[in-house]
């Protein structure tokens, strides 16, 4: 019996998925509604009670709107396209080579590095007053003062696009590797190669069509995130005007009816933007797929395309890893520096004073971060187990698709409305609200990590256990979960890592009162003090890294491979 086998009767957990979906989608819908009302003129507290489209006219008429929209679209789509190309190219060109093993090892710590801190490090590397310029000056360049070069914050958002691309391609490589782990591609690849296909082309032709559907949702999530990014856009993007998401945040910060309603309209617009761009991408997928069929069946064993993609991938992935690592090192140096001015390539003096003195201020932040992250990951892992257990036999992909919704919607579009809900329940600014809001974003990732191992578990084990008289719950607790210890630990660690990095959800649900390392990192990223930013960034990276390490080291090898090996 190849297919997943479920129990006809006796599925006590059957209502669980519906409950979980309701718990997730419900608040999101409420949040969207809460944002929708002011967009159509209803903001009673600020004296606006007439339904009207005034907010929309104001939005479209705003001088910055058109450019902000353009920047958002270009950077969002562009970064995702480039990141995907690099990821595909890197995996296609390098898989099975020794370099790939090193690449995968190098990947882990760079992924734990939070985006906001990456942006700060990247900014310091690339700026005309930054590290690269300092290393080369003045002996090579002759610059006595930093040159007036428009690299960061350029009006078209190129720096932003590059940074997004570099960080996201690493994530997509991880997704491809994970998807590849599930498929049995090696044999097919080898036979393609024996037919004369060069390795890169063989991978593109054999593996990519199989793997793309599996990474489709992560790609959409990356697309949505690039369009809606706030923290990196603030650090690296243009300021006048900024992309749409930070611009919306600016408007939310102005306490008058006009700006508030513009902000609401912009938030709603971003939802449609997200949907529209994803739809456009979907069309693109089909177009590319159609063209690709022609390429596949052309029989060409090697060509310019695979060479080009391969090179883009290798260079891109290499650049991404080098940049991410340099960014971490740069922030490490800053955290240890007492003074580091132009044009010195290294700090003038090293001291531990920043670390020592920030210990007291960081302690409550770390406390908050860890408490929220542990609670969220435990709850999310538990919920994921229940959902997976209840849904055995159902087509899983649609379920997970629904739970991906929080990742596909721009956070700003429903977080504000959600905050109104928390406020009304007297819960905003509490840890509980923050935990629940984090849960919305953590659950999809946990499910993503856990669903394959869960389904790969030989269904006959559960049947045997139940035939021996154990009910569903007892089978789950005594038999299934112990066998899934390692994947559970990894899933929880991933959930922990995702929670640690959440910025906007913490700000909104916490009503600005609950500070975590992530909120502090963004607050410091705007340049208050790079030394402190370094300390916070490193602490922020260390936490998820430690969690993942713990999950991978944890014992669990008795839970060996029980997948059907016939």
């Amino acid at each position: 019996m190849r297919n997943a086998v479920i129990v006809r009767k006796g599925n006590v957990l059957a209502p669980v998925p519906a409950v979980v979906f309701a718990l997730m989608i419900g608040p999101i819908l409420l949040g969207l509604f809460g944002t929708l009302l002011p967009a159509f003129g209803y903001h009673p507290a600020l004296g606006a009670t007439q339904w009207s489209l005034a907010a929309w006219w104001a939005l479209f008429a705003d001088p910055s709107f058109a450019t902000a929209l353009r920047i958002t679209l270009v950077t969002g789509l562009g970064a995702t396209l480039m990141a995907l190309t690099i990821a595909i190219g890197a995996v296609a060109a390098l898989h099975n080579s020794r370099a790939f093993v090193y690449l995968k090892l190098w990947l882990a710590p760079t992924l734990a590095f939070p985006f906001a801190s990456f942006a700060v490090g990247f900014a310091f590397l690339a700026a005309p007053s930054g590290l690269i310029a300092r290393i080369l000056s003045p002996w090579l360049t002759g610059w006595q003062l930093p040159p007036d070069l428009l690299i960061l914050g350029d009006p078209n958002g190129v720096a932003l696009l590059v940074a997004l691309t570099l960080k996201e391609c690493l994530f997509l490589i991880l997704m491809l590797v994970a998807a590849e782990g599930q498929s049995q591609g090696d044999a097919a690849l080898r036979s393609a190669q024996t037919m004369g296909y060069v390795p890169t082309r063989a991978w593109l032709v054999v593996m990519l069509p199989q793997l793309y559907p599996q990474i489709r949702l992560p790609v959409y999530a990356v697309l949505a995130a690039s369009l809606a990014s706030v923290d990196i856009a603030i650090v690296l993007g243009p300021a006048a005007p900024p992309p749409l998401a930070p611009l919306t945040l600016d408007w939310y910060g102005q306490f008058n009816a006009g700006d508030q309603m513009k902000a609401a309209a912009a938030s709603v617009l971003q939802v449609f933007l997200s949907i529209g761009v994803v739809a456009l991408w979907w069309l693109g997928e089909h177009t590319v797929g159609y063209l690709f069929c022609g390429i596949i069946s052309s029989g060409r064993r090697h060509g310019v395309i695979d060479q080009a993609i391969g090179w883009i991938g290798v260079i891109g992935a290499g650049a991404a890893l080098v940049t991410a690592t340099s960014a971490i090192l740069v922030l490490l140096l800053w955290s240890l520096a007492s003074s580091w001015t132009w044009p010195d390539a290294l700090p003038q003096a090293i001291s531990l004073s920043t670390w020592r003195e920030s210990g007291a201020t960081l302690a409550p932040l770390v406390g908050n971060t860890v408490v929220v992250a542990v609670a969220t990951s435990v709850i999310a892992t538990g919920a994921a187990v229940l959902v997976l257990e209840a849904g055995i036999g159902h087509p899983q992909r649609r379920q997970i698709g629904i739970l991906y919704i929080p990742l596909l919607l721009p956070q700003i579009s429903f977080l504000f409305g959600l905050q109104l809900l928390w406020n009304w329940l007297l819960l905003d600014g509490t840890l509980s609200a923050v935990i629940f809001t984090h849960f919305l974003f953590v659950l999809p990732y946990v499910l993503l990590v856990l669903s394959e191992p869960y389904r790969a578990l030989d269904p006959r084990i559960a049947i045997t256990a139940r035939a021996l008289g154990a009910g569903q719950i007892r089978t789950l607790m005594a038999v299934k979960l112990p066998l899934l210890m390692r994947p559970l630990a990894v899933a929880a660690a991933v959930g922990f890592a995702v929670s640690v990095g959440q910025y906007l959800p913490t700000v909104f649900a916490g009503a600005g009162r609950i500070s975590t390392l992530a909120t502090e990192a963004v607050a410091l990223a705007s340049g208050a003090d790079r030394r402190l930013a370094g300390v916070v960034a490193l602490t922020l990276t260390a936490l998820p890294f430690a969690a993942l390490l713990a999950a991978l080291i944890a014992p669990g090898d008795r839970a060996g491979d029980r997948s059907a090996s016939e």
Partner: protein
Amino acid sequence: MSEGLILSDVTLAVAGITLIDRLSLSVAPGEVISLMGPSGSGKSSLIAYLCGALDRQFQASGTVTLDGVCIDRWPIERRRVGVLFQDDMLFAHMTVGENLAFAVARGVGRAERQARVAQALAEAELTGFTNRSPATLSGGQRARVALMRAMLAEPRALLLDEPFARLDPSLRLRIRDFTFAMIAARGVPALLVTHDAQDVPGQMLDLGQPNPRF
């Protein structure tokens, strides 16, 4: 009054294709009836159906009666129908003793439970294996443990899905005989699905033509 396992007009279909058409048979306590047929003839699906784990994609009709009680609508754990698969399905994270203890009914006290486990091991000539990990056992030993575990649950019927297929030919005969002896001794009706005609100890049913799909 034990009447054994009775199937009446059992029909299994999936995606519009009928795999099993109005199968009726009756297995007396201690009797072993074998089902033969090539791949795709629905043997494993029938096993799944009988123990209560049929995949949702299947449509099933007919009735299954066990010791006079209709068990169609019952969940797996209530049916008291044991299953043995090709692979022994021993729980890798538990010791042999824990695997066996898992099968003993819930209300049984600790001392009694351990006694039953010890007795089962003795019957299988595996005394002293209580704390061994299943991974350290040989194929034949694992097959015996799996059988004893199934028996410890005091099933009222036993389903065997090609349980000897993975064993070395040299072992196969011994394990087969051991299994059938157990079944006869406990008086449990058993349904055996197999490829191998040599496995058949008694009555045999041929499930007919292979499915054109395969």
